[in-house]
């Protein structure tokens, strides 16, 4: 058996198998042109090996020339696809070089078929019987070398440069494995093809052409690359499979509705939870328009939203009422994301919905309870208010009635003194004012904000309030000390309100000093102007206030007295607040409490004061 025949046949078979593998890979992934190019190079290498074997046993010079012509075509079909395969695979080859190589080899082919001999020989003179070192004979030739053979030779160096350059650049980019494979492939190719073949051509060494082996190294390197890529791909596939399983478990088990919607608004996916929630099977829904999940009234809005989502992206959250099969409606809060292809084109929406029906119902019930409680509280408060109103109104009304009836009686008697009648009428007028003040005050409490504001002199308000309380303070033997500032500007306020505040504070102070001996029952009222405020303070000589209750004192219904409903200070604070002012309480160093009211000065009033 001939060793040459065995070796070249094996080389051909190996190339053929590698080529078939590439074709198979290419079938699975049509877009990878690399596989097709490598397959073409591999098949060509297989053909090249067979042609070389034929050359070794050529029987005439004419047959030899013909075989060499075909051999050169096959070499073209190896080199050019390989160059482009490397170019596509590494992505680092120089495109112009690849084109140059392609062009030069095309020229070479034209020369190959145009010249009388072939690309290598212009004329083959005779066949020579050559002997290998192990004693096997094969055919060599002697003849006139074609000067144009320089073109493919130069091209070979360009190819070498192309491969090495691409490998180095790839290496620099950190893709060392690819670079090494291509580098070794190119090295073997150069070693065997690029150096050996010209030496044989020149008749320097006597071996058969071994171009197919040179190409085989290159084809092997590329195949190694591509098979490695396939292995990598299968590892990726396993990882993707694991990831897919993870997501599938999530989608199947999560108590959230997951819906996929295509860019045309059709349902592409629903998860099992959604099936249970809606009562529809997945196969009943997939392919249906998403709008059938909502009521007709909502459908147009949903359609609109889907269109907007396709154009500018979905809203992050939206709430929809879902129509379920048993005629039930459920509220879902959806979060949606745009789904895009790797190229960035819009493919549809993925949306996750939380069933908030029960939560909404609970919230509604809670707020109903809260409203009911508020209503009850208001009713209670109104009751208290009505009771307070009744109490405060009945006092002056009782006094007026009794005074009037006393006057009627006096008119019928001879003992009538005009002075008595005058006093009675005076009292009636005062009590009537008192009653109307109570009403005005209550009204200002109930309808706050509707009070009439006017420039008010705080000092006047203090004096008016004291006039109203005169007899009250007299009977309690409370002495009031006034210290009113002369230069007090007017404040824009409600006269009634300010008077009310003064009265409440003085009343409180009077009660605070009640337990003291007569000459200690002292209430001091002071007014003064600060930078931007005017101040009223009411001090008493009582026991002061405890720190813990200093704040709650101003809450409604807070009282330390057995009588009264604890509205006095609450009213004060409300009125002062309505005027943009402040009210607070502190203990005096000398004992007793000091209530201070601070009202803001306004520009307008300050000028009107001047």
């Amino acid at each position: 058996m001939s060793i040459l025949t065995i070796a070249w046949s094996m080389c051909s078979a190996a190339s053929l198998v590698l080529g078939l593998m590439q074709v198979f890979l290419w079938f699975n992934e049509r877009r990878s042109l690399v596989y097709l190019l490598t397959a073409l190079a591999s098949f060509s290498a297989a053909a090249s090996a067979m042609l070389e074997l034929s050359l070794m046993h050529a029987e005439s010079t004419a047959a030899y020339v013909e075989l060499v012509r075909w051999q050169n075509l096959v070499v073209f079909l190896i080199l050019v696809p390989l160059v482009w395969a490397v170019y596509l695979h590494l992505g680092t080859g120089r495109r112009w070089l690849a084109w140059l190589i392609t062009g030069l080899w095309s020229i070479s082919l034209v020369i190959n078929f145009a010249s009388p001999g072939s690309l290598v020989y212009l004329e083959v003179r005779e066949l020579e019987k050559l002997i290998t070192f192990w004693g096997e004979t094969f055919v060599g030739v002697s003849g006139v070398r074609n000067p144009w053979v320089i073109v493919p030779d130069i091209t070979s160096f360009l190819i070498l440069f192309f491969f090495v350059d691409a490998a180095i650049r790839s290496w620099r980019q950190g893709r060392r494995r690819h670079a090494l494979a291509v580098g070794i492939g190119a090295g073997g190719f150069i070693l065997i093809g690029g150096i050996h073949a010209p030496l044989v051509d020149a008749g320097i060494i006597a071996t058969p052409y071994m171009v197919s082996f040179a190409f085989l190294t290159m084809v092997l390197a590329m195949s190694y690359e591509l098979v490695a890529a396939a292995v990598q791909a299968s590892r990726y596939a396993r990882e993707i499979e694991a990831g897919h399983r993870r997501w599938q478990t999530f989608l199947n088990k999560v108590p959230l509705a997951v819906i996929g919607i295509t860019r045309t608004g059709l349902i592409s996916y629903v998860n099992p939870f959604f099936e249970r929630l809606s009562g529809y099977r997945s196969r009943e829904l997939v392919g249906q328009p998403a709008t059938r999940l909502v009521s007709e009234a909502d459908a147009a809005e949903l359609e609109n939203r889907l269109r907007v989502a396709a154009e500018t992206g979905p809203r992050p959250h939206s709430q929809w009422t879902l129509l379920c099969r048993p005629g039930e409606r459920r509220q879902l809060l959806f979060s949606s994301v745009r789904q895009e292809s790797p190229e960035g084109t819009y493919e549809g929406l993925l949306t996750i919905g939380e069933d908030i029906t029960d939560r909404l119902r609970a919230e509604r019930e809670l707020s109903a309870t809260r409203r009911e409680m508020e209503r009850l509280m208001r009713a209670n408060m109104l009751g208290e208010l009505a009771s307070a109103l009744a109490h405060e109104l009945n006092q002056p009304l009782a006094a007026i009635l009794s005074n009037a009836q006393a006057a009627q009686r006096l008119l019928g008697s001879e003992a009538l003194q005009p002075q008595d009648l005058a006093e009675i009428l005076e009292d009636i007028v005062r009590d009537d004012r008192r009653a109307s003040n109570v009403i005005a005050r209550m009204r200002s409490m109930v309808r706050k904000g509707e009070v009439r504001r006017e420039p008010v002199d705080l000092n006047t308000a203090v004096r008016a309030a004291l006039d109203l309380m005169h007899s009250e303070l007299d009977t309690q033997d409370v002495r009031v000390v006034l210290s009113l500032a002369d230069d007090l500007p007017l404040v824009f306020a409600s006269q009634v309100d300010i008077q009310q505040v003064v009265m409440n504070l003085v009343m409180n102070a009077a009660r605070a000093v009640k337990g003291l001996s007569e000459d200690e029952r002292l209430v001091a009222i002071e007014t003064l102007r600060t930078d931007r405020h005017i101040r009223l303070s009411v001090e008493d000589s009582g026991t002061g206030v405890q720190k813990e209750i200093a704040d709650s004192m101003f809450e409604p219904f807070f009282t330390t007295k057995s009588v009264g409903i604890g509205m006095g200070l609450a009213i004060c604070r409300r009125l002062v607040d309505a005027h943009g002012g402040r009210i607070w309480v502190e203990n005096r160093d000398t004992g007793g409490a000091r209530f201070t009211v601070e009202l803001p000065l306004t520009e307008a009033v300050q000028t009107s004061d001047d």
Partner: protein
Amino acid sequence: MTDAPFSICLIDDDASVRRSLQRLLMASGYCVETFPDAQSYLDGRAGEQCGCIILDVRMPGVDGLELQLRLADLEQVAPIVFLTGHGDIPMSVKAVKRGAVDFLTKPVDEKVLLAAVDNAVALYRRRLAEYRNVAAIRERMAVLTPRELEVMRCVITGAPNKKIAETLGIAEKTVKVHRARVMSKLDVASVAELLQICQQAGIEPVTQGQR
């Protein structure tokens, strides 16, 4: 019975109300004293009697209902008329159960007020007369000796002298003497009359087997 005018005490924390009611009552012929709260009444007037107390319920310090209890403890016989700005039914029931004559709400018409005050004063008169009567009887009985008192309590049981002597362990003759002295000291003509004044004075007969 005497017709001397009784003063009326008015206790109310509202000065206007006090003054107006005082005028009205004075114009109707009453003598009126006013107090701004319960304590000042207790301090100034509690020892003395008056014809009627007009009392506010809600007042600082001791309120009306509490004052009513305290006056009862002090054996104050003056009838109380409550006058309140806003009373409720439980409050009025409580007041009347404790002996208040009336429970009026402000504003009160003079007719209603005066009728209540008149009633109260009339009641006070009756109570006073009764009180005085009892006081007179007790004064008369004060002159009886212990033994005479003992015999008297037996007599009003209706027992004959013999039985009384047995009960007290003395001679029947002695019983007769004591009995005659009791009748003359108390200036009564018959046992029936004696029984009546004993009842008024609250003297109980000796019950069987007491000794």
